[in-house]
């Protein structure tokens, strides 16, 4: 009999303890981040899609168009387009196509790059209406970023003209 009453009042007490706990939580400030209006800072380790690294002064890419990334990519989602202007010794990067629909974010391209020209971007708000929205052209993105920082736009093809003979 005493067990019966002990159970009832013990149970009632535990209920009150629980209600006190939820009351305390209810009075605490909320922890929600109102997402589209507020965002949390992204960790610097965040591995989004790849982007070309920007040279901090010139605002240009350090890519030498060697094509290592293209070869290292297990999903064949990278195409490096470059051309060698007549007389120039170096190849010049003209386009860097990333098909993000195929990318598995493995990071082999970033690892393998001899000039550290690739980095992971911090972009995560990637939603689109068509798969073509995920075919990125990284040189264009780099130029847009450089323009935003007010760095000089990329010079159109190296000026080294072959000396007239």
């Amino acid at each position: 009999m005493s067990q019966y009453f002990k159970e009832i009042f013990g149970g009632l007490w535990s209920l009150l303890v629980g209600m006190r706990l939820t009351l305390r939580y209810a009075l605490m400030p909320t922890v929600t981040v109102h997402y589209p209006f507020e965002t949390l800072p992204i960790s610097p380790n965040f591995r989004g899609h790849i982007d070309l690294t920007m040279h901090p002064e010139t605002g240009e890419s350090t890519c030498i168009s060697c094509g290592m990334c293209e070869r290292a990519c297990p999903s064949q989602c990278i195409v490096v387009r470059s051309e060698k202007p007549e007389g120039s010794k170096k190849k010049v990067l003209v386009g860097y196509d990333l098909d993000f629909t195929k990318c598995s974010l493995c990071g082999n391209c970033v690892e393998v790059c001899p000039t550290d020209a690739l980095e992971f971007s911090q972009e995560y708000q990637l939603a689109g209406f068509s798969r073509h929205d995920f075919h990125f052209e990284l040189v264009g993105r780099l130029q847009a970023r450089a323009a935003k920082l007010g760095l000089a736009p990329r010079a159109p093809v190296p000026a080294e003209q072959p000396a007239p003979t």
Partner: protein
Amino acid sequence: MIEALPPELLRIVVSVLIVIAFAFANSAIMVLVERKVCGHIQRRPGPFEVGPHGLLQTAVDGLKLMGKQLLVPAKADRKLFLLAPILSFVPPIAALIVVPFSPSSQVRDLDIGVLFIMALAAINVLAIVVAGWSSANKYSLFGAIRAVAQNVGYEIPLLVSLVTIVLWVGSFKMSDIVAAQSDLWFVFTPMGFVAFVIYFIAGMAETNRAPFDLPEAESELTAGFHTEYSGMGFGLFFLGEYTNMVLVASIATTLFLGGWHGPFFDLPYTGLLWFLAKAYGLLVIMIWIRWTFPRTRFDQLLNFCWKVLIPFSLVNLAVTALWLKL
């Protein structure tokens, strides 16, 4: 035109319209309050985007519900299926007729007020059974079966605890019960307090609120008896549930918390305010309880009723009877 109508008829029509409007407004407000309270208990703000702090959320939700198609499953019993939401929605609204919101705002002060409310509140189970049976869905039927088992059990302590007060006052009339509490609310007497606690618990079980929401246990029965309902069919069940809640809170206020009497003094027109403050205080406590405790298991639910609530309420009734006789 208006002169031709008997004034009594006009009075009834107007007051019934007001009661229905109150039921709708109450549901809209309670849904919002519920979502806000539950949000804050879980440390999130609840609905926030529609209107300032999400105040218009329920209005938008209501519009959406009204715009939805009412689907009737192919194997369902069509007539019963369409009848059930109405059956769950009308009785609680009808019961609001005898609730004394203030000395001057009570539609009908029936001599059998308490009995009338209890009779109408019991129809709620019938609505659930009809809904569960006619849906031709095993989850709905399980929900209905559970609702019956639960309500058969919990009706007893509910009624016995109300009878305790009726015995004390010697009248079923709501206004008499409120008048009897002008000096001391029943909740502040030992017997009244026990009866109040039992009534409150049983009332929560009667309205199928968590932690007693087994007829609509989402994790086991999808949505229980209203699984198959869409649009306003579901909306009416929802309205019925929230009206039932406010009914339970109003009865508790009337019978135990002194009705329209304020705690210290009564000004001429504060009756309604006191009544609503007490009733909505109880409703917030019901919400608070819902978002604190997990759902009970079915055997625990019935054990609690038959082994604890019923003996306690019967002993309480016997003690009250003895005390009144001595």
